[in-house]
């Protein structure tokens, strides 16, 4: 792994990281236009300087608890093969530099969707930095 810089953000109690070069920008809470009948994790569409970007609620994607009412979500806009996608997260953290040696793949006890979407964790001093597999995260499961 050559790029050791991660853009970090929080979801509930967890800290996640996405490689910096995959992140296009981080923006304030935006007005969302809901898309009826779309996959439940699609929170809506945002207008990113004239471009229409799909916003995916990462809490729901990772099957975490829904964000408490009234709490606005920040947008982490990532580049994907199918264009830009915005991840809705609770809070934006710093860009951190990590040491390859502190990386570990998730133990087998990690279950469910997290097992699929989290490639591993860096053991930071005070917490774990979970690394998100962006291409997999934007692949939405077929709606039930």
């Amino acid at each position, binding site marked *: 792994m050559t790029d050791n810089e991660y853009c970090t953000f929080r979801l509930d109690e967890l800290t996640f990281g996405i490689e910096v070069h995959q992140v296009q920008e981080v923006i304030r809470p935006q*007005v969302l*236009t*809901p*898309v*009826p*009948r*779309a*996959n439940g994790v*699609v929170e809506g*569409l*945002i*207008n990113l*300087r*004239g*471009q*229409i*970007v*799909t916003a*995916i609620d990462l809490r729901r994607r990772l099957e975490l608890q829904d964000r408490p009412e009234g709490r606005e979500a920040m947008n982490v806009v990532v580049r994907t093969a*199918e*264009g*830009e*996608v915005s991840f809705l997260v609770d809070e934006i953290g710093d860009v951190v530099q990590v040491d390859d040696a502190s990386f570990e793949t998730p133990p087998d006890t990690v279950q469910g969707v997290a097992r699929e979407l989290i490639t591993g964790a860096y053991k930071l001093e005070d917490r774990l930095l979970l690394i998100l597999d962006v291409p997999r995260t*934007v692949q*939405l499961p*077929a*709606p039930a």
Partner: protein
Amino acid sequence: MSEIDEIVGEFLVESYENLDRYDEDLLALERDPTDADVLGSIFRTIHTIKGTCGFFGFSRLESVSHVAENLLGKLRDGELVVTGEIASALLTTGDALRGMLADIEATGEEGASEHADLVAELERLHAGGAATFAAVGDDTAVDAAADGGDTEVAAAGVDEDAAPDAAEEPPTPRLGDLLIEQGLATAEDVALALHAQELGDKRPLGEILMEQAKVPVEEVDQTLATQASARGLAESSIRVDVGLLDELMNLVGELVLARNQIVQLVTEEQDSSFANASQRLNLITTELQEGVMKTRMQPIGNVWNKLPRVVRDLALSCGKQVDLVMEGQDTELDKTIIEAIKDPLTHLVRNAVDHGIESVERRVAVGKSRTGRLVLRAYHEGGQVNIEIADDGAGIDATKLKAKALEKGLITAQQAGSMREREALQLIFGAGFSTAAQVTNVSGRGVGMDVVRTNIERIGGTVDVHTELGGGTTFKVKIPLTLAIIPALVVTSQGDRFAIPQLNLLELLRLEGEQARSGIELLHGAPVYRLRGRLLPIVRLDDQLGQPRLVTAEPADGDREVINIVVLQADGHQFGLVVDDITDTQEIVVKPLGGHLKDATLFAGATIMGDGRIALILDVLGIAQRARVVSEARERSAAITELDDVVATGTATQTLLLVGVGERRAAVALSEVSRLETFDASTLEWAGGREVVQYRDEILPLVRLGAAIGVHGTNASEGPLEVVVHQVAGRAVGIVVDAILDIVEQHLDLDDGDGRPGLLGSAVIQERVTDVLDVAAIVATVDPGRFAHDPNRFASDAYLGA
């Protein structure tokens, strides 16, 4: 790309362009062989290609152009006069050159072909040989459309007035010469200054002269300007990458939004200087938007300019004489649309020459002029561009069309009988249909017109045909100006805005008061509205979108004061979409949805509204399918649907109307039902020994279903009559039933039944044995002559499940 590749690239683009003009010029020359200007232009084109090829070492290309140039030289010197033969050979030369250029473009090398036949032909003509024109080998007829030349914004004009000899553009006049000419400097001064340059003075000539105080500063500036303008047209236009224009277009869209927001802010602020500034911003933005839009617009002439050649060659090979008239070449269209209509238009033109216009003998025989006339006309109308392709040929014989379709098994005799002329004409757009008596190498392979229609419809256009037997045929193509910006109706549903493309919009209905409360009726749970006597299926937008109804915002249906219905058309089916509110119509910029929403079939895209918020664009067909207004399979038109039905296999499902008759139930294909009506028993009258009612100023004969199929115990004549109206060949018959029960869609598994008249058999529908009606047999009892009964038709067509 290396520098040399770049130069070759420029040479290619320029040559393609010149060759396009070369074709046009040759056709012009053929009409008027004395036109020296045109001949000069032709000569220049070939000469330039020859010269440049020599420079790059493309020897074959050079030698072909060299022979052509020799021939042209004789023409120019008046030793030869242009004949059809010479024009053909020169046109073929153009094709050969294009082919070789295309090879260079693809491989960097010229092709292997020596074009020996062509060279021999050119030499023979050059020698003034009298031998007959030998067909030039196929290898030369490379149809390299070579679209390379189409990407530029404006073609670099070539100086028309240059003498034929001046093969290259006249050199830019030198500043020194100009100054001398204008008497501002003497020849010696200039010579001195030039000498200084030779000695190593790097400064421009004007500067040296100014420093030497020989020439006043302003004069040099002015003269430099003269020099600049003398560079002429060639340098006043540039090529721009289309991708860059798209990007600019996006940015302008953004600017428009930002402008809208600022203009909104101004209304809140009181500061007048801010208001002035924003007013200016407003104007400039609008102009900029128009300007950028214009850069993407191209005159339709860019597509048309290839057609004279097509028409000429085709007419020649068919032995016809055709005069091509083009009107409205300047009509502008968005570049993407121009690209999309190129092929369909060419096909329509070829068709007109090949099938439309008659041979010379035939024309003379029917008293027409020898030369046929083909008119291309383009004009703007109501935000759309209309293109007409009109010939004065034989017209299309609807009767023959039907006979042909019948022969090919595309329609049944029954359908042919009931088909009106307009419907019959639509047959030519069907797949696998061609009326050309003989399959020519031009058209008539039966794969053309359906593709033409598909391609035009794909860009939101329509194509229609009008014909007059013996008088000619006109194809009318309507296309939007641009794909990126479409007119749309903005509606709201549960607080969200949605845009509906106006293309799908038929009309708007507003039900108020009593109408709002009772206008929408239920047909076994399915809401319908009587629109001018026809049942219009009603679909609620919020239901389709799965939006929870805001209880406070909207009382229950029964109490609503106003109901807004947008009448839409999808695949030939009409339905009414109930929306909360109709806001506005406006031009919207269509933006695609991300790949993650490709399953969202209800939406065709999204757009950004004036306030910067996003509105989704409804896919009317998607909604119709979801609401089951149209079946899953995309149908093209009623006529085609019927054709498809004939060939469809047993898996198709039927939409059936269930009716009650006595204690029994009966089913009738919904396609056989034109309307459902209720008549009061007191309106019953007798005519010709039958029960009839007056219906829409006509007499509607009635058939009692119970009597017709031998079911007893049906109701007597008091009380209202439920009538299923069936229409055949423009005449209606009413079938009186006891009750209208339901509409179901299902696959029919038909039993033979017990041989009672008027039945195709019986089937189990909704867990009950149901008689399946043979409507044709039933109505045939009314007037056996009029409603001829063809048992085969219904067995094969109406009830596929059998």
